[in-house]
């Protein structure tokens, strides 16, 4: 069980995690308690008041009441509290500014129609840095190991070839 000080620290993180998860519920099914982030904030505000009043940040020992309500608050956080505590203890992930992560835009979908039978080097010229993330030949979805994009061509691997007039639907992303 985290200490009163730790619960105080992780509370805003847990609320953000809960809020994000409830937002995901819009796409992936409503969460059992969509009001949880609000309920957590209501309790946090009350406990935070007492935390400051008792001068815990200054090193004072929490009263029995504050310990009780803090533990109660932590139980309200549920799994979000556990995740927040983990983030707090491990420090989370700090990107290295000397090698920033490349950020891509939204996927773009396009279709290439083969001109002749037997094509496997498809002249698809994508923007610099583009990455093909999906390919579907006719109705068959290709594995990522079955194609490679080598500008300016998308090359089908493993003996896969196109038939004339057959469509290859592909999705790619471009660095922003």
């Amino acid at each position, binding site marked *: 069980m985290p200490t009163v000080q730790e619960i105080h620290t992780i509370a805003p993180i847990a609320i953000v995690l809960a809020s994000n998860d409830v937002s995901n519920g819009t796409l992936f099914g409503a969460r059992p308690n969509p009001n949880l982030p*609000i309920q957590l904030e209501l309790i946090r505000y009350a406990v935070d008041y007492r935390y400051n*009043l008792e001068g815990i940040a200054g090193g004072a020992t929490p009263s029995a009441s504050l310990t009780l309500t803090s533990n109660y608050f932590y139980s309200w956080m549920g799994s979000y509290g556990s995740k927040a505590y983990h983030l707090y203890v491990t420090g989370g992930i700090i990107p290295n500014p000397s090698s920033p992560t490349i950020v891509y835009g939204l996927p773009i979908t396009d279709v290439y129609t083969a001109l002749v039978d037997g094509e496997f080097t498809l002249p698809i010229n994508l923007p610099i840095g583009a990455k093909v993330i999906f390919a579907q030949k006719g109705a068959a979805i290709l594995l990522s190991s079955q194609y490679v994009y080598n500008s300016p061509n998308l090359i089908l691997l493993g003996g896969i070839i196109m038939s004339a007039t057959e469509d290859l639907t592909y999705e790619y992303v471009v660095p922003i």
Partner: protein
Amino acid sequence: MAFVQNFTIAQTLGNPGIINLTDTSTGVDAAIVGRKVYLITNASTYLVPTGTTTSYITWLIGNASIAIDALKKDQSLNIRVDWTDAGGVALYSKTILSNFEMYNSDFNYQLVNDEANGLASLNSPNWLMSRMKLYVALRDATVSVTDMSSITNGQSANDRGTSLRLNLNNFY
């Protein structure tokens, strides 16, 4: 060194009715022999402890701080301190707008404490809305006074919170 008037304000832990003032002025002015404290409400009336017949509270110059037992509920107050000469005339004056919300904040905390002790029903349909109303009243009072310097809005929010606190059986 020239006299520069100043003071700080605090509420008392466990006794929200008491306001503590501490004189933090710097410098010296030999003409100062007394201090007067005015607690001015949003209605421009003066708040004083029970039994006080003047509109102000006398703060003896020999005391660095004073505890004033005047609050019966949460209030937004303009606190004015006058540093006076022998004739009672103000030589220096300073006013600080402050919000005192310990009554309602204590009540808000007590609700959580009761829940933690299993004394309150979380299944009440009023739980979320009533708690939210109190939360908004508390935040509103603080923001109105500290960010917007509005004693009127601050007191209005304090009174909303007080109404919830005094009629708890209807809301919680």
